């Protein structure tokens, strides 16, 4: 009986310690307020977007954020901002961290730290009736993408490597305001192909069935990251632990599977691991 009591006491103590360790890792400010403030750019289905019928905020990032908040024992309050506003929102403290389809990239790691949580990469797609059969067919053609992303640089690098190195003409980059504008320009024929994050293409294709066709595998490989201020190591550790827990018990893959992105899962959360 004594042994059992000792065992029970130890088990209870370690459970409490684990629970306390998880909650204690959260910065005091957030723990006391009981609220996590997060900004998203809700124009990026299926990662974050507003349901056209109800205007409700939805998406993979939103569900992950809510699940992380629940694990950390806090409520999440979401605000909508423009994509270019995400990083300033982190700097000014408007958002506690960024989980909004933001790629982990070397230039961004100068001012932020990332927990990589989703594999991604830039991918070409064309109208279903396009003559292009493979990415190399796009040399010399007009390529569009959202100018506020890191994709223009990716396109230029790809063009140098695949087109100009093979003696073909370089691609002509045509900027767009957002992914909807880019698809609109492709429908009108202003551009021949477009580039988007590979995680958004299954949704875009299912939304307008039969209109588009993906061209080739993603031509860059990297990660979407949850971005933290460099000074917020405690918060980052807490979120990392929570995410690790979600991967371990399968809830992470379940959320990804809901959006058709189970193949983009990471096996453990990584910090600043993107090769880009």
């Amino acid at each position, binding site marked *: 009986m004594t042994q059992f009591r000792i065992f029970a006491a130890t088990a209870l103590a370690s459970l409490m310690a684990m629970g306390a360790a998880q909650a204690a890792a959260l910065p005091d400010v957030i723990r006391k307020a009981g609220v996590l403030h997060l900004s998203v750019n809700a124009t990026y289905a299926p990662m974050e977007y507003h349901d056209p019928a109800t205007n409700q905020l939805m998406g993979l990032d939103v569900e992950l954020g809510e699940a992380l908040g629940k694990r950390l024992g806090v409520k999440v309050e979401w605000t909508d901002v423009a994509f270019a506003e995400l990083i*300033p929102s982190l700097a000014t403290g408007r958002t506690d961290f960024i989980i909004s389809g933001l790629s982990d990239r070397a230039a961004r790691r100068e001012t932020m730290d990332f927990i990589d949580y989703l594999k991604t990469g830039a991918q070409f797609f064309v109208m279903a009736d396009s003559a292009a059969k493979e990415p190399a067919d796009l040399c010399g053609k007009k390529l569009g993408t959202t*100018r506020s*992303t890191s994709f223009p*640089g990716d396109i230029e690098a790809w063009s140098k490597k695949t087109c100009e190195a093979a003696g073909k003409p370089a691609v002509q980059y045509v*900027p*767009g*305001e957002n992914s909807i504008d880019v698809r609109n320009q492709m429908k*009108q024929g*202003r551009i021949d192909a477009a580039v988007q994050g590979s995680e958004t293409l299954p949704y875009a294709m299912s939304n307008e069935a039969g209109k588009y066709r993906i061209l080739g595998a993603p031509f860059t490989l990297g990660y979407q990251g949850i971005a933290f201020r460099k000074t917020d190591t405690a918060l980052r550790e807490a979120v990392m632990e929570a995410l690790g827990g979600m991967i371990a018990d399968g809830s992470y893959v379940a959320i990804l599977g809901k959006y058709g992105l189970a193949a983009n899962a990471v096996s453990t959360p990584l910090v600043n691991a993107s090769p880009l």
Partner: protein
Amino acid sequence: MHWGRWFAAAVILALLALLARAFALGQIEWPYVARFLTVPVIINGIINTVVMAVLAMALGIALGVTIAIMRLSPNPVLKSVASGYTWLFRGTPLILQLLLWFNLALVFPTLGIPGIWSGRAVDIMTPFLSALLGLGINQGAYTSEVIRAGILSVDTGQYEAAQSIGMGRLRALRRIILPQAMRVVLPPLGNEFIGMVKATSLASVIQYPEVLHNAENIYYANSRVIELLIVAGIWYLAVVSVLTPLQMLLERRFARGTTRMGR
């Protein structure tokens, strides 16, 4: 001694100094502002801004004069067309008009004169042309009202006198009425032109490479949003600061022969 004035001036200066201090000590990284203030991309941007503002204003004035004259015409067809034009282009947001011009291919995939020439709308409606048409035609609706007010402000006696020496309506307008209307028309038009310089920033959403668009491209790459917007703001201020005394000079020239006081 005007003690009140001294005190007020001191308070205002103190507030300005505190404001300047807050900006200097804030999280804005001023070295980036200095660094990007004169890069070629920004200079090209402000040149494109001024070029578009001048051309769109010219188009707006040309359309405005035409529509104002049509509006004051006894011909009911001309009158309704002018009213309809003003209603439509004053009644819709400028950003919507710009987007419609840029995406004209959704409605007219090809443009042209049947039998002579045609082309794809996406090739014809470049960002430059879309911005020019969008801004100019929108401006025409507002300018037409300003010109109409100017024409109405000229004493009807002038028109009767012109008629009495045998001038037709259009001739009277051109030689007698409009030159006198200029004095009344210039201050609001100068105002509109300054507004146009900044309205060109809306053309950034249709990819016209004016200064805001180019500043945005820089901060999309290096994340220094406020610093680059301050760079664009400085250039807009510089352009408006040059235009304001120019407007004054132009007004003085058209006010020749009239004085508000004395003879």
